[in-house]
Every structure is written in C-alpha cells, then in structure tokens.
C-alpha cells in the first residue's frame, strides 16, 4: 500500500507530465508558428514612436496574456538543475512559448479591429499561485 502511495502514483504523474506535456508543447509550437506566419504583416515594435511617414488616424491600447504552468516532469528537471545550478532549459521553453502566445493574442486583437502596427510593446511576468502569468501590451495604430 505504501509503495503505491509513495512510488507508483508519483511515477505515474511524472510519466503523464513527460508524455502529455511534451505532446502539448509540440502541438503548441506548431500552432504558434502557424499563427505567427498568419499575422506576419502586422508589425510589432518595442520603440516608442511610429515609423516615419506613418499617418495614424486612430490609436488604442491592445494587450494579450496567458498563464502557463510547468508539468511535473519539468518541475523535477528544474529541481535537479537547482542542485548544480545553471540554465533550466525546460523553463526557458515554457516561458518562451508563453511570451510568443501573449504577443500573438495581442496581435490577434489588434488585427481583428483593423490596426496595422503595434508600438511600444512591453512585457510583464508574474508568478501567480501555480503558474506564471505573461502579459504583453502596446499601442496599436491604424493608418489613414
């Protein structure tokens, strides 16, 4: 009974994390790439000013956010990594995925309302309970 409780269940959760987590990550990357191509025309800048010659007729604040969580396997990898220190690759992937997703959601909102450019893009990251919130926002502009 004890063996089931302390060994089999954690192992099963780890395996579920590894298999389903990896599968989801691949699928997510594929979806991100697809949508990034779709919204390629909408340009995103980190700078404050609109490109020269851009005659803005309407501006507004747009944002996109996501809360991502690590799977059990990634958490275990990170725990081991913490012993010797260094880069935690599994978390790097997770955050990169989340950040690209946040930008995409911001772009989707801007594109849906006919905006053609986003400037002054800012990111925000916050740890909330069991996940990491990644939030992107910027000013979208419409050309005359």
């Amino acid at each position, binding site marked *: 009974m004890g063996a089931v409780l302390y060994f089999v269940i954690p192992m099963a959760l780890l395996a579920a*994390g590894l298999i389903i987590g990896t599968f989801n990550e691949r699928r997510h990357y594929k979806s991100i790439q697809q949508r990034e191509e779709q919204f390629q025309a909408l340009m995103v800048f980190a700078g404050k000013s609109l490109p020269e010659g851009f005659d803005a007729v309407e501006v507004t604040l747009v944002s996109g*956010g*996501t809360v991502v969580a690590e799977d059990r396997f990634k958490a275990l990898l990170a725990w081991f990594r913490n012993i010797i220190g260094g880069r935690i690759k599994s978390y790097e992937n997770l955050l990169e995925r989340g950040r690209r997703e946040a930008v995409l959601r911001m772009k989707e909102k801007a594109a849906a309302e006919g905006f053609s450019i986003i400037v002054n893009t800012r990111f925000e990251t916050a740890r909330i309970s069991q996940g990491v919130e990644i939030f992107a926002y910027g*000013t979208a502009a419409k050309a005359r």
Partner: protein
Amino acid sequence: MLTNIDHAPGWRIVEHKGLVQGSTVQSKHIGRDIFASLKNIIGGELKGYTELLEEARNEALRRMMTQAKETGANAVLNVRFSTSTITAGAAEILAYGTAVLVEREEA
C-alpha cells in the same frame, strides 16, 4: 482613448490632468484552484487563470478610465500595468497612466 506611449498620434494635448489609476484585488474560487493543480501535472496553459486575469485587468482599466473622466480628461497616455501577489491566492492588478485632454490635430 488609451495608449502606452507619451502622446496620441494625430491628436494634440490641450491639458494635462495628472496621474490616474485603477486597481483591483482578485482571488479565484477553490474550484479553479483544484482544476489548476490537476492541470499542473501535465503543464500547459491555465485557461481559468488567463480569463480571470483578463477580467481583472479590464476592471482595473475601467476604474482608471472612470477616474480620468471625473477629472474631465478624454484620454489616458503612458498606461502601465503592474501585477503582484498579495497573499496566497490573490493578486493585485494595477493600471495607471497620465490623464489628458486631447483634441484632433488639423491636417
């Protein structure tokens, strides 16, 4: 009108009304917490939290805009956001910016 740059392209600032802010402290119900800890096994997006934070952020923006309107402004420039976990399970979302009165630039 909201922007996070220090001007509004196509508009001229007539009057500055000062700093305005709106904030909300949001907690999630226990059902979402339980679901989130299940989702934590396989990782990925926690959709419930995403929606919750989006609502909270919109609420903070709304409160900021209400305050801006009270001062007689019609736009808020340089909008910033800030999120912090206050206690376990609750997050404060703050939105702030500079309220201004703008009018259209003659072309």
